[in-house]
């Protein structure tokens, strides 16, 4: 009797969830996300029941999450829990990995990005990415920034391009340091400068979302502080998702935090709440350093 009831309940639950997914998809306007100390933010990216496989191995299990617009969302969790994998779903970088497969629903501004009707080039112009290790092109600083606008046909003239390069470098807080050597090779910059160059390069194509996978892990504290400052400034105009192993960093730069473990989303909410009164014990344990 109890068993039957429980089964019914689970089934109902599933139906409701499916309904939620279906209706959300087509009817409901994008909802808003409330975060303390912040205006309610519209949803920029919506993910529902996302599964990611590498061959036979499943790296992400049934993750659903809403990413607010013009805010910083941090992904935290122990190594190998699938943060990078999940992050890569948002600009389909997983496509480049042999044998990977993504299913479920991911929408950017209400438009599905998983089905192949969306051109991946367009998607990546809208969703930029900064990688863990600074990876400037082995070309000049100028060329590094100019490449994106050029391939997307965003510029008409050399003057336009010069302006974009300067603006992007200024936004990344790098212009004053490199303005005299724009045509020197980018690989001659320090690690921190290279990473800011990579951020400038991502900004240059005016994306709406910037994905950052442990952007400070190769940097010293001072460079890290500069990048964090930068992230805070960028929040005004961009939706940012950052993967980090540093709890302090997550606490400093993000408004919302998502905690992952073994490919599952454990908990998600306003950063302050996650760090002060998490609902799940595993989150608490991870944040206080008891595992990870």
């Amino acid at each position, binding site marked *: 009797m109890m068993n039957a009831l429980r089964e019914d309940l689970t089934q109902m639950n599933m139906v409701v969830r499916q309904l939620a997914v279906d209706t959300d998809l087509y009817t409901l306007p994008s909802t808003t996300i409330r975060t303390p100390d912040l205006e309610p933010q519209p949803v920029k990216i919506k993910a529902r029941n996302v599964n990611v496989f590498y061959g036979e191995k499943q790296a992400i299990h049934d993750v659903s999450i809403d990413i607010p617009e013009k805010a910083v969302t941090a992904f935290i969790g122990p190594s190998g829990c699938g943060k990078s994998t999940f992050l890569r779903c948002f600009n389909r970088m997983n496509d*480049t990995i042999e044998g990977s497969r993504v299913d479920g629903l991911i929408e950017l501004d209400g438009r599905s990005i998983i089905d192949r009707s969306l051109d991946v080039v367009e998607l990546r112009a809208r969703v930029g990415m900064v*990688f863990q290790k600074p*990876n400037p*092109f082995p070309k000049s600083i100028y060329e590094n920034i100019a*490449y*994106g606008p050029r391939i997307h046909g965003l510029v008409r003239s050399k003057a336009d391009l010069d302006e974009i390069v300067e603006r992007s470098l200024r936004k990344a807080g790098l212009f004053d340091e490199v303005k005299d050597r724009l045509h020197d090779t980018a690989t001659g910059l320090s690690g921190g400068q290279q990473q800011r160059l990579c951020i400038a390069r991502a900004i240059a*194509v005016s994306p709406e979302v910037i994905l950052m996978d442990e952007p400070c892990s190769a940097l010293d504290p001072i460079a890290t502080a500069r990048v964090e400052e930068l992230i805070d400034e960028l929040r005004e105009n961009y939706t940012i998702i950052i993967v980090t192993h540093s709890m302090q960093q997550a606490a400093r730069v993000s408004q919302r935090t998502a905690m992952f473990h073994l490919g599952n989303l454990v908990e998600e909410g306003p950063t302050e709440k996650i760090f002060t009164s998490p609902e799940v014990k595993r989150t608490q344990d991870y944040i206080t350093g008891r595992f990870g």
Partner: protein
Amino acid sequence: MSDTSSSLPQQRQHSTIRAGIAKRHARERRFRAYGIAAICAALTAVAILFGMILYKGVPAFWQANVELEIFFDPEIIKVPERPQPQPGQSPAELEKQQLAWERQVTMVNWNRVIKAAIRKAAPDVEIDTKQALSIIETNGRYELRDMFVNDPGLLGQTVTVNLLASANADNWLKGNIDRNLPDAQQQLSAPARALADRLLEEGTIRFAFAWHLFTNVDSRSAPASAGLAGAFMGSLYMMLVVIVLAVPLGVGSAIYLEEFAPKNRFTDFIEVNINNLAAVPSIVFGLLGAAVFINFFHLPLSAPIVGGLVLTLMTLPTIIIATRSALRAVPPSLRQAALGLGASKTQTVFHHVLPVTYPGVLTATIIGVAQALGETAPLLLIGMNAFVAAVPGTPFEQSTALPVQIFLWQGNENRNFFEARTSAAIIVLLALMLALNAIAIYLRTRLERRK
């Protein structure tokens, strides 16, 4: 953990490590000694090889020239005036007349002109005509004829002309022949040898740099005038064919296989076979070339185009394999950077990945081309060992190639003379290879500096 309890085992451990250190250092020193010994052995072998080739080949670059006062004697050169264009005459007719005139000039007994000049150079020597002429290379008369055809005004004048000494005279004067051998075993008769010695002493015969080695084609009747121009052009055409075909094909297939091809059984199969192809003996490619290009496509025999095609097949695997490994060595972060910005696959490859691999691809290409340049066996099978006494004007004309020329000269019956010639040809081939390698190194450092 107290000091006393740990110190004993620790000390023991330290002494064990110390004992091991001596052994480790010894091993390192031994290994270094092996390495140095190996390098020394290799260097010695190379030094001996180059030393031998230079020792034998360098003298061949200087050849005996005979400076003669040639009198264009109207008594001997009895030909009419050179036909001039007449009013109302068609160009074809004029050409026909001039050809007839040239034929007459060729019929002139130029040897008599030369003999007269030799007599004048050494008036007191008793020698018969045939013996006197034997110290001049047989192409001498054609040189005089050409001079006269170009300038009929020479008739009745005396001009100083440098003629090549014959191969036998050159040999004798260089001391390549044992001077104590009896007459019966000498190539030149006793009076001719005496004449040559005397002319050398008087300065009429001089050793001069043999430019004709680079400007003349091979010759059998006049071995002293034989040169490498034909073989050089043949090799050059083949190299061009190889570069034009093998580089784009090889680099293109490498890019496709490495970057675009789906990873499945079929591509695995192709990959294995490309590796196999690299190991196929070159003579097999020659057989293939003869069967496919000559028998099936009816391309001309002995032509550089066929040689180039065969060598292209041979070079392709080298270039493909090297390019693929260069592509594979490009760090994935570079691809990610480009893809993450929204570059398409093709843009990523051509804008970012390929430029990084240029130095590697370039080196592979030059090594491949250098290998092709030195290849002989497959060329023998497509008829490039034919005797060709002309510089090929196009890749479709008959020609020989540098390594084949070396092979042919090595087999020439005039051993004494051609031994040095062969080494000289080897020097030219090696110089060409060194030049190729120098270009490769230069381009490579330039490309790498630009990065």
